[in-house]
C-alpha cells in the first residue's frame, strides 16, 4: 500500500519511535512528579520539550505543555483567552479544530474570518484593513488572531512574520496552529512574536497519535481552564486568576455566570464571561509571577507517547529540518508539474505559491470521493478526499462542496510512490474523458 495521507497522520514512523514506545511500556513508568521511580521517563519529558524548542523556535521550553493533541490544545487556548467569539479573528483556510471551538464559544456570535486567495494564502494587507476598520468602528474590539501556519488542503504556508507584526500593532494576542508545519517547515515562534502555539505529535513530528501540546509565552494572558492533579503542591485548591481588580471579587473564579445570565442560556457556558467581567480580567496584563503559579499540564500525561515523541523529534533534528523541507517540497513540485500535464486534472495551487507538503486536485467528471476510492481500492494508494475538516477554504479555491483529493507526502515518500500515483491518475482521467 502506498501511503500519501501524511497530513492526516504520518506513516511509517521511524524505527527509533517504535522502539522508544515499546521501551517506555516495558520500563518503570515515568513518575511525572508523583514518584521517584522512572527517572528516565521524566528525562524524556524534558528532552522532548528541548527538542520541540529547537524545532519550534521557542527558548523557554518549560512553557511547553503536553496535551492529547492540537485539538485539545486549541480548545484550551481559545477558552483560556476568556474572550467572546466576536473578539477573535481567524482565516478561511483554517481547520475545524480552530473554527469549531470559536463558532461554539459564544451563543449568537461568530469570529471574524479573513479571506484567502485561490492558493489558500492569507494576505497581510487584508488583516491590516480589517483591524484598522475595527479600531475606527464601534464593533466589539478584536483581541486575538488565531490561524494555521500551513493549510491542510493546499499546503499554502502563511506569512506569519508579517501577520503577527500587524496583529501586535493593534494589540492582538497571536495564537498559531502548527499542526501541519511542525517537523517539516521552519517555525520561529519567538522571532515571530507568537503568544501561544498548538502542535500535534503524530503528523510531521512523526510521533504517535494522542500526543501533542501547546506553548504559552510567559506573561501572555491565557488562563488555565483544565484543572486537576499536577504532582505539585497538592494542598493548593485555588489559583488567583488575575491581578486584583475593582470589578472582580478577590480570589474569585469567574467560571460561574451571574444569576442574571445563567438562567437565560440553554446550556451553561462557564468559560464565557459577561462583558462587565471579561474586560477587567483579560485586559489586565498577566502578572508574570502570578502566571508562574498557573499549571497548564494537568492529569497524567501519555508517558510512552511522550517518550516516542522525544525519539521522533530527535530523529527529525538529526535528519535536519532543512533537508526534510527540501525533500518534501521536491515531491510536491514533481506532483504539480506532472499532474498538471494530465488532461482533465484540476490543481489547487502551484509550486511557486504552495510550499507545504500537501496538495489538492480533482479530475473533471469525477467526484473526489470516487477518485480517492479508486486510488485506494484499485491501485493501493491511500489519499484523502472531501473537505478535509476545513470547510471554508473550498469556497475560495473553487473546489466546491465535494472538496478535493488530497495528497500529503513525508520524508519516507519516494519517487516510485509518486510515479505510481501519476500513472493511476493518468489512467483514471483517460477512463472518464
Amino acid at each position, binding site marked *: 500500500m502506498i501511503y500519501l495521507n501524511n497530513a492526516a497522520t504520518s506513516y511509517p514512523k521511524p524505527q527509533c519511535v517504535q522502539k522508544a514506545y515499546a521501551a517506555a511500556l516495558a520500563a518503570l513508568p515515568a513518575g511525572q512528579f508523583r514518584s521517584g521511580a522512572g527517572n528516565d521517563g521524566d528525562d524524556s519529558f524534558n528532552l522532548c520539550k528541548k527538542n520541540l524548542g529547537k524545532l519550534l523556535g521557542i527558548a523557554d521550553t518549560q512553557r511547553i505543555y503536553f496535551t492529547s493533541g492540537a485539538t485539545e490544545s486549541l480548545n484550551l487556548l481559545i477558552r483560556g483567552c476568556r474572550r467572546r467569539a466576536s473578539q477573535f479573528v481567524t482565516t478561511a483556510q483554517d481547520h475545524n479544530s480552530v473554527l469549531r471551538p470559536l463558532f461554539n464559544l459564544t451563543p449568537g456570535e461568530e469570529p471574524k474570518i479573513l479571506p484567502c486567495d485561490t492558493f489558500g494564502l492569507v494576505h497581510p494587507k487584508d488583516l491590516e484593513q480589517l483591524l484598522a476598520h475595527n479600531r475606527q468602528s464601534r464593533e466589539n474590539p478584536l483581541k486575538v488572531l488565531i490561524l494555521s501556519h500551513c493549510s491542510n488542503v493546499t499546503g499554502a504556508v502563511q506569512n506569519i512574520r508579517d501577520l503577527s507584526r500587524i496583529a501586535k500593532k493593534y494589540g492582538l494576542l497571536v495564537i498559531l496552529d502548527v499542526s501541519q508545519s511542525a517537523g517539516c517547515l521552519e517555525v520561529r515562534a519567538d522571532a515571530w512574536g507568537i503568544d501561544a502555539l498548538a502542535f500535534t505529535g503524530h503528523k510531521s513530528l512523526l510521533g504517535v497519535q494522542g500526543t501533542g501540546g501547546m506553548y504559552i509565552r510567559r506573561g501572555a494572558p491565557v488562563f488555565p481552564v483544565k484543572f486537576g492533579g499536577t504532582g505539585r503542591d497538592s494542598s493548593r485548591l485555588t489559583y488567583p486568576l488575575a491581578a486584583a481588580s475593582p470589578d472582580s471579587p478577590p480570589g474569585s473564579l469567574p467560571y460561574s455566570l451571574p444569576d442574571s445570565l445563567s438562567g437565560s442560556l440553554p446550556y451553561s457556558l462557564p468559560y464565557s464571561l459577561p462583558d462587565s467581567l471579561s474586560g477587567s480580567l483579560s485586559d489586565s496584563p498577566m502578572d508574570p509571577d502570578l502566571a508562574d503559579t498557573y499549571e497548564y499540564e494537568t492529569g497524567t500525561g501519555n508517558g510512552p507517547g511522550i517518550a516516542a515523541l522525544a525519539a521522533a523529534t530527535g530523529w527529525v533534528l538529526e535528519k535536519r529540518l532543512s533537508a526534510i523541507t527540501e525533500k518534501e517540497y521536491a515531491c510536491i513540485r514533481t506532483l504539480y508539474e506532472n499532474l498538471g500535464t494530465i488532461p482533465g486534472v484540476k490543481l489547487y495551487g502551484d509550486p511557486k505559491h504552495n510550499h507545504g507538503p500537501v496538495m489538492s486536485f480533482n479530475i473533471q467528471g469525477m467526484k473526489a470521493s470516487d477518485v480517492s*476510492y479508486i486510488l485506494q481500492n*484499485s491501485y493501493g494508494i491511500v489519499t484523502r478526499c472531501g473537505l478535509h475538516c476545513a470547510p471554508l477554504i473550498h469556497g475560495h479555491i473553487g473546489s466546491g462542496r465535494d472538496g478535493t483529493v488530497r495528497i500529503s507526502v513525508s520524508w519516507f515518500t519516494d519517487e516510485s510512490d509518486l510515479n505510481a500515483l501519476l500513472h493511476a491518475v493518468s489512467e483514471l482521467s483517460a477512463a472518464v474523458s
Partner: protein
Amino acid sequence: MKNIQQNNNANQKKEKERIVFVRRIPSRERCAESGWYAWDYLLSAPMDQAFIMRLKDLGGSFVFLHMLKKPFFKLESDYYALKGVLGDDFFRVATHEDNEVLLKRVENFINGADDHDHSEGHDEA
C-alpha cells in the same frame, strides 16, 4: 439421466459460487461521502463481473470503468450510491439520509438475486 446429473452439477456450482450479503458496517471512510450516510457491505466472496452487473437492476445510472487496474463500478440515483471494485469482497453504499428501508432493499437484493446472467457485455463510462 446424464443430462439431469449435469444440470444438478451446474446448479450446485452456481449455488456454491453465489455471493451473499454477510453484514454491513459503518463505512471506514464515512467522511468521504460529504455528509451522506455511508456503509460498507461485506460479502461472502470477492465480487465478479456477473455480480456487479446484477446490481444494475437496483436502478440508477451505472458506470463501469473496466480499463482500470481493478475495474470500478458506481450505481447512482438521487438517494443512494453504490460503488466498488471488481475483486473486492465489499462495496460501499451511501444514502442521502439514514434510510434503513433502502439499505435493507440492497441487502435483500443481493441475497435474493436471480440467476439472470449479465456476464456478456456491459455498459461503459
